C-alpha cells in the first residue's frame, strides 16, 4: 500500500513584515488569514538555436518579480497597506526613498526545519488595491512589484 504523504502550512506559522522608514513597519501575518504569493518575472535560462541545430544555453540573472498580498479587510495589516499605497502614490519628496520598502518572510519550518528567510527589496504597489463592499468579511488584494529577491 502506498504511503500517505502530507504537509502542513499555515500563515500563522510564518512571520511576514513589511517596512518602509517613512511609513513604519507592520507584521502582515498577524492578520491571521490571507495569502502571500510572489513569482519571478524573468526567465532563468534561454536557448539560442542556430540553423544547424546548435543550441546555446544562456543563463540569465533575474531577481525581480511580481506578487500579491491578500489580507483580511479592516485588520491592522490592511490599514497599514492602505496607508502605504496612498503614501507611495502621493509622495512628493526624493524619489530615491520610494524604493526603500522591504518585505521579509521568515518560515521557521522551511529548509527542513532549519528556517528560511525570503527578503524582497524595492517593493512598490503595482496598482491600487481593489475596493469592495460585502456582507461577509473577505480579503483585499494588493498587487506588488519587487526589484530583488534574496533567499537564505
Amino acid at each position, binding site marked *: 500500500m502506498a504511503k500517505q504523504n502530507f504537509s502542513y502550512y499555515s500563515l500563522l506559522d510564518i512571520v511576514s*513584515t513589511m*517596512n*518602509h*522608514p*517613512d*511609513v*513604519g*513597519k*507592520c*507584521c502582515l501575518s*498577524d492578520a491571521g488569514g490571507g495569502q502571500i504569493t510572489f513569482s519571478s518575472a524573468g526567465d532563468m535560462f534561454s536557448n539560442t538555436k542556430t540553423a544547424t541545430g546548435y543550441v546555446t544555453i544562456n543563463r540569465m540573472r533575474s531577481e525581480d518579480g511580481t506578487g500579491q498580498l491578500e489580507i483580511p479587510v479592516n485588520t*491592522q495589516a490592511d490599514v497599514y497597506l492602505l*496607508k*502605504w499605497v*496612498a*503614501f507611495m502614490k502621493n*509622495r512628493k*519628496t526624493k524619489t530615491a526613498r520610494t524604493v526603500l520598502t522591504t518585505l521579509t518572510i521568515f518560515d521557521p519550518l522551511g529548509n527542513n526545519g532549519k528556517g528560511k528567510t525570503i527578503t524582497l527589496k524595492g517593493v512598490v504597489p503595482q496598482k491600487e488595491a481593489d475596493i469592495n463592499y460585502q456582507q461577509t468579511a473577505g480579503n483585499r488584494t494588493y498587487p506588488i512589484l519587487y526589484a530583488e529577491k534574496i533567499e537564505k
Partner: protein
Amino acid sequence: MREITKEIKFDVDGREMTFQIRKFDVLKATYVAKLAIEKIVPIFTTLEGVMTPIPKDIKKEEIDAIVKERTAKVMDNLPSLLSKLTEDELNFLMKRCLQHVDVLLPAGWQPVMIGDKFGVDELEYDEWAALRLFYEVLEFNLGSFFGGKNLSSILNRLNSFLPSA
C-alpha cells in the same frame, strides 16, 4: 472638551520626532492604576530624598559625601526594588503604554507598537525613548486617578532619570 490625545516632541537618535499619546479607556486605565499603586509608587517612596536637589552653596567634600550616601541607598535597595516588579508585569506595562502612542512619520501617524511588535524601527532598540514614552503615557493617563499633582510628583522622580529632550 475632554482631552484624549496629547502631542509631545523629543529627540530620538538625533532626530526630533513627534508623538501622540492616547488615553486609555476606563477599564484599561483602572488595571494599570492598580499595578502602579501596588508596584511603582512604593519604589519611589523608598527612594524618598534620593532625588532632591543637592544645594550648590556647600563644600565639594560635602557634595561628594551626599552623592556617595545616596548611591549606597539606591544600590542597597535595588535588588528588592527590582524584585517588586516581575518581568511579566514590566512587559505588560511597557506594552500597554507603548500601544497607546503614535509617532508622526511622513506617511502619517504610525502606532509605536502594534500588538506585541514594534511599528517603527528607530524605537525598537532605543531604551531611553521607550522609558520616556512610558513615563509620558502613565502621567497623561493616571494623573486624574491620583489627583494630578500627587502622581506628577511621584513620576517626576522617574523623569529625573531620563535625559532632557
